[in-house]
């Protein structure tokens, strides 16, 4: 994956983005580490690209600034997004960026073959999806986590998470199930931790991708 062109598009200029890299050094390190676990061959660039997209998005940007900037202005207002929503968003963006990277590697391999055949019209990476498409893709990634992992959950955990997702408060769930509120909280917490394990499993590098050769910069 080539280093992202931070000056292209978005509301952040090149100099602002350079500042952002400094401001969010720890976040970039964490994202880079996750990108590596997801099988990225260029985790640093993947992390930068995910951060760039998160700062370009008007909804995620205030949350990123509030939760992860190195120094928070004293008068900073809490963002509309809670922390877990931002984390899920970052995970989704990063997952998508790594997926794009893998597609690029595949395309480069194929395009290298096509180029040898003389079809130079095909020697371009496919355009990135529009921002609203990115939202949809991230939503799909989160849905996929739930779809994959929910059936494996213990019935009690699944039941309370379902009730929680339907908007019920812990007290309401406890009343319906005839258990204490503490039990509900425990089941929710354990259910979420089990889902977290599923998230971890989903970040295992794909073996078929690992077998691919290093991307050849300049092929495109």
């Amino acid at each position, binding site marked *: 994956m080539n280093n992202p062109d931070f000056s292209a598009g978005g509301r952040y200029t090149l100099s602002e983005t350079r500042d952002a890299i400094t401001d969010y050094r*720890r*976040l970039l*390190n*964490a994202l880079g*580490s*996750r990108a590596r676990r997801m099988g990225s061959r260029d985790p640093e660039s993947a992390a930068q690209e995910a951060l760039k997209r998160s700062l370009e998005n008007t909804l995620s940007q205030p949350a990123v600034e*509030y*939760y*992860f900037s190195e120094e*928070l202005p004293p008068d900073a207002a*809490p*963002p509309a997004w*809670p*922390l*877990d*929503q*931002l*984390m*899920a*968003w*970052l*995970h989704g963006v990063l997952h998508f960026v790594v997926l794009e990277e893998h597609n690029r590697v595949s395309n480069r391999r194929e395009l290298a073959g096509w180029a040898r055949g003389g079809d130079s019209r095909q020697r371009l990476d496919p355009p990135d999806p529009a921002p609203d498409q990115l939202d949809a893709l991230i*939503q799909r990634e*989160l*849905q996929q*986590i*739930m*779809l994959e992992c*929910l*059936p*494996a959950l213990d019935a009690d955990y699944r039941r309370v*998470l*379902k009730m*929680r*997702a*339907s*908007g019920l408060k*812990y007290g309401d769930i406890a009343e319906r199930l005839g258990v204490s509120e503490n039990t509900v*909280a425990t089941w*929710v*917490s354990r*259910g*979420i*931790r089990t*889902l*977290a*394990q*599923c*998230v*971890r*499993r989903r970040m*295992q*590098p*794909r*073996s*078929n991708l690992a077998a691919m050769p290093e991307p050849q910069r300049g092929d495109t």
Partner: protein
Amino acid sequence: MNIDQFATRDLSPTEARLLAQQALEDTDLFDTLVAQGAVEASLQSPAIFRSTRRVPWAIALCAAAAAVLLAFFLWRSSSRQIPQPSEQARAIVSKPAILPSLETVNDRPVLLASELRPAHSPNAGAFRGGSGPTRQPQSTGRIVALEAGEASVNLGSLDGLTKGIELGPIVITTVFRDHARGKIVNGSPIRINDPVRVPLSIHLTAVLHEVDALAATGGLSQARELARNALSAGSAGETRMLLERLAALDYQAGATDAAREHYEAAANNFYAPPAASPSEQAATLNSLGALYLLRGDPASAEKPLNQAASETAIDPDLRAQIVNNLGVLSEMKGDLATARDDYSRAHAQANLTRLRNLKHP
């Protein structure tokens, strides 16, 4: 401040920021927050929960068919699933749990090694184990009576004697549980109280039967002690099978380290006379590999499992077990594509065996 407080929205924004900073250094916390976000995201699309229940008819039918086949398969092959000695070991095995292995328990891959299973009572032999008074097999006895060219000895079926066995100058003709009679060959000069010795291979077989009988009737520790004590009776090659049985008993008793060490010792003596057959080698190496995987040590499991898989003249059922375990190994190493291939091959091998058994029961 912790994730539980956050989950119940008990954290202030400032505390949530501190939690966020903490998550940058703590992968588990990061993942938990992502999972929490995924759950909360379903508030916007609660259809996720519904969609987990909505199964298309075609898939439902396939799933039902698969369940029937799996039930049949598990019923037929339940004798091959190794018992799990401890929760810790189970957790290590099931950790990858991404793909279905040849057999699964709660969607967790299961290692297969029939050698590690408790011995069935048919191997135990009559008059052994806990039913009625018994004694351990003896390797030596004495002549207790002489009459009309026949000798009586205080050794019997418990000691491995069968009709036709030669005890020095005596050919056994009648066998009881704890004594036997036989003809004296060519009028050999023998007297009462003369010692007689059971051939070593017969004695070790008797010990094996007694060990199986004790284990089958719940006397696991007695069985292990008997097997351990008998190890000194012969050479490394002669007692190798006993060592392998002891390893299985160790495993059944939860002593997985001892089991592994005994299997390792057996594997080191495959070529000590009498040399181990390919099937014995493959079964032992498969069990050894499975134990390494139980310990969460795929690196050490690789060699014995690959060596077991390289044996050609082995039982197809055993091959299916080995390939299944290679799948678990690949899964633990994160090589999911290879794991999937291995499980497919194991399934194919097991199904082939089952078809053959149906044709030639």
